[in-house]
């Protein structure tokens, strides 16, 4: 006949468990093994529960109570032993030197010219301008003639041109895109065109290659006050709403009226410094109403459509944005320069 567990026997198992747990100290693995030994699917205490079915119904509640107490005791003991062990692991471990340099993932950078171009393009894209591009080696026709700059016109002196042949030049500005786009499409047109440009000039303030962004808006009843509003908005987005600006009459053969846009010197705030030649103003944009002669060249009726165009030098804006004082740095590509724009 099978022996049924009694109180003494249960206490014995419990005491044995507590002793073993005590001996396991802070060994997490051992503690876990003890959990299996006593409370696991085939554990000693679990096995005792199986005897419940064999005792008489009147003894059953008493035995059940004893077994539950035993299990709870062992469970608690295991719980606290585990807790103790984990704490010991955390505190006993060697501490790391928290000042060790981090393993920084290698981070690259975009050229400052790219960054500024993207910023300008983003601002105008948000206003609904479409981004287009054109060739860098350009026909004299698009670079000059279509923009109302005939051969033998003194305005050609305004730009020192690299020639490939009599009819082919390196574009001296991004303006030829105006003519190319208008030739292909009908108004309304709202475009922005970034790209490389070239002039036969190299000194402290000129590099033979540089970057420009051109803009053009053509439609019905586009006016000079629209030009002012769009470019004012741009300047405020680019340099901040506090920056003052002024529109100054100038001359470009392909716009009439023409305007230079000056912003208050970002270095001195307008009080005058070396960067602004003590005028308090910095020239950043050329602009104007598209000259009727340009519309006629592309087959638009200047009585029907009007528009404005503008162009700006990227390097100039980058220099103002980051207070870069030497233009030539842009194309030397010294990594000590480039990494400052990471």
């Amino acid at each position, binding site marked *: 006949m099978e022996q049924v567990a009694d109180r003494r026997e249960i206490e014995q198992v419990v005491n044995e468990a507590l002793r073993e747990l005590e001996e396991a100290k802070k060994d997490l693995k051992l503690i876990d093994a003890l959990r299996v030994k006593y409370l696991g699917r085939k554990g000693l205490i679990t096995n005792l529960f199986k005897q419940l079915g064999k005792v008489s119904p009147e003894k059953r509640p008493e035995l059940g109570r004893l077994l539950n107490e035993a299990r709870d005791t062992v469970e608690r003991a295991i719980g606290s032993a585990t807790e103790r062990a984990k704490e010991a692991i955390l505190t006993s471990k060697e501490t790391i030197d928290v000042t060790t340099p981090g393993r920084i993932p290698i981070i690259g950078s975009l050229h400052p010219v790219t960054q500024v171009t993207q910023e300008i393009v983003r601002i105008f894209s948000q206003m609904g301008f479409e981004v287009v591009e054109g060739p860098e080696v350009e*026909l004299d026709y698009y670079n000059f003639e279509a923009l109302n700059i005939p051969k033998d016109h003194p305005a050609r002196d305004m730009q020192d041109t690299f020639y490939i042949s009599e009819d082919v030049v390196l574009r001296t500005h991004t303006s030829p895109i105006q003519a190319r786009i208008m030739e292909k499409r009908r108004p309304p047109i709202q475009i922005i065109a970034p790209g490389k440009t070239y002039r036969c000039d190299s000194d402290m303030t000129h590099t033979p290659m540089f970057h420009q962004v051109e803009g053009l808006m053509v439609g019905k009843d586009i*006016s*000079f006050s629209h030009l002012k509003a769009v470019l004012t908005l741009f300047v405020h987005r680019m340099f901040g709403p506090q920056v003052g600006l002024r529109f100054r009459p100038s001359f470009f053969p392909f716009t009439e009226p023409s305007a230079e846009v000056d912003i208050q010197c970002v270095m001195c705030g307008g009080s005058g410094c070396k960067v602004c030649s003590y005028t308090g103003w910095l020239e950043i944009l050329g602009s104007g109403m598209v000259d009727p002669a340009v519309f006629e060249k592309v087959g638009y009726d200047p009585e029907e459509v009007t528009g404005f165009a503008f162009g700006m030098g990227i390097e100039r804006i980058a220099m103002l944005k980051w207070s870069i004082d030497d233009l030539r740095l842009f194309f030397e590509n010294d990594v000590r320069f480039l990494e400052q724009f990471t």
Partner: protein
Amino acid sequence: MRFSFKWLKSYVEIEANPKEIADRLTMVGLEVESVEPRYPHLKRVIPVKITRVNRHPKADRLMLCNVTDGTSTFQVVCGAPNVREGIVVPLALPGTELPNGIKVEEAIIRGEGSKGMLCSGKELALTDDASGLWILPETITLGIPLDEALGIDDFILDISVTPNRGDCLSVIGIAREVAAIYGTSVRYPDISLVEEGPPIESIARVDIEDPQKCPRYAARVIFDVEIRESPEWIRNRLESAGVRAINNIVDVTNYVMLEMGQPLHAFDYDRLADHRIIVKCAKAGDRFLTLDGQERILFDDSLMICDGREAVAIAGIMGGELSGIDFRTTRVLIESAWFDPITTRRTSKKLRLTTESSYRFERGIDPEGVIRALDRAAQLMKELGGGKISKGRIDVYPRPYQRKTIRLRVDRANKYLGTNLSTEEMASILSRLEMKVERREDGDLDVTPPSFRQDLTREVDLTEEVARIHGYDNVPLERPRVLMVDIEPNEHLQLRDALKEFLRGLGLREIITYSFISPSAISKLGFQDGDEKLRTVRLLNPLSEEQSVMRTSLVPSMLETLAFNLNRQSNCLRLFELSKIFIPKEGFLLPQEDFHLIVALVGKRHPKLLYSDEDVDYSDIKGIADAILSFFRITNISFQPLDKFETPYMDPASSADIICGESHIGRVGKLDIRVAERFDIKEPVWMLEFDYEKLFSLRGPIPKFRSLPKYPSVVRDIAMVVDESFQVQRGIDFINSIGETLLESVEIFDIFRSSQIGEGKKSIGYRLTYRSSERSLTDEEVNRIHEGIVKQMLEYFGAKLR
């Protein structure tokens, strides 16, 4: 255009100071680049009176002078012979920089203090007298800046005149703008002549053979002039404009040009054969000696001024050496003409000879001002050199200038500008600019611009004038109401920007280099003669040979950039450039412009030695290539042995061509060390090139989402020993070619060499992942399939298991 403020003020009455005028001029489109004192060095020179003179105790030839500036007295050491008590002389205070370069400092001269320097007229560049101290009038105010004390204080304004405003290349031209700004009028100089000489017809004659190139030619003759130095006032004004004084006759021609904008020329009447002028073109190849002593070779469209025998001047550009004014001249023929702008410009460009005269003719002079300038010059020459002015003048005018009347629609102008100006306001602005303005019945304006405004020919030109004088700043802002347009995305550009961001994420730095390079830089890459990379677009006028051809490869600039940085101790370089190359296209004027991408790695894998002291190698650069290909979702790629003829600058043992289908889209690997040496690079360079245009056109579609697997995968490995020359990719290709449907993927997890495996051998570990989308696979099932694959592989490659 440089001129003195006082000169300007002699034509227009204004109260404003120079700075204020400069600002106003700038804001009407005449950009004033600088406003400087006429005599900056006189600002710290003051008149002082010498009150006592004593001998210097330690130097015989020096004197100790007590001088007073009216309020205080100080000591100055002086060695001038004419120093004496009671005279008033200029004292340069410490800090003055004299025109001769001397910097005046407070000094101790042989033990005696000297607060500045007493000066001669020559030292101040105001007189020619260097013999002693400049003795000033007794009545002069002591202690104030000398220019003010002498009444010669003035400012020089320098204006950058735009090419359309030839009329502003004169002081009167500027005065007209000032008058328009301030609503006042110009005081033109009085011209009145006493004509005492013989009638002009009897002594000279002018013929124009080419009226297209010379629409007007006028002349006067003066007899019995005396060539001498011009008076101070005229020399001073010339000098203020940066023109050197020569003699009274030449000075007058320059003076009138600066005053009125009309270039003039003075001939020695007695050196003009037959006393006649013929205006005609040169014959190609003719030689002509200009007055600067240079011999010029002429073209058949060079317009010349000739006498009865030969050429005496290049029309509108420069006179001849042999017909000019010199000290023996007594009779002068004055030329005042209107030469065609384009003709003048062409000749000036061809001869590479630009003068004050050609500059003005190119920009258009006032055709109706020709006579006024001629008479003004005659008047001044007589005033300065005596003599008798001929009776009457020659005025050959075969192509008279027609004034044009332009209608200005007031509403249209307002709409164009976004303004709301009244008819009267517009009329007033235009009248102030000396235009003839008539109000039409319909409310618009009929406007006739003055002859000096040759730039105003269309309605829009008048609109600009209205805006300019009204003030751009007074035009209100209005945001345009635009139609929404269907904007086509510029995918080519968007993807370029995205690629740059992606590369930045891979730890690469973008560089931007010049599009033009040196032809020798391409040759350094080792291309054979006749290679198409050597066929370049060449500049006709490069700045230097180093920048003379448009690049056909991004490699040279990248290598130069690497060398530049390595020379500056930057040793860990991870660079890229995405720019155009230019390929000449047979039968087309313009070359093909393709974007290419180049990536280069040099040095350590990680810039921090703490974490890695390993050098970059093929796997690094190839990894970037793989990443870019997956960025473009391009599959069907193979890396093939490098074609050494196509790419002579890469090391064929460590480089590969990247092929997609049939198309060569890039190359990756190691730079040939001989090429590296040619660019002064000693370190290994790992390089990757892609044709962006091909990446762009081969880019894959946006992939569809694939459901995540429901059942677990089972992984099995093969480690196979093969010859060293075996390309690891072949194993992958073979396994994939078997077409086992339960095989999900295969990758290389290990490449291992050891002495145990043997010399010239390597072990490649392939990891195969099996999975079914319908059920969990059993070990037995997978083992059976895997063993089949292993067997086929070993047989196919004749390899052994490790």
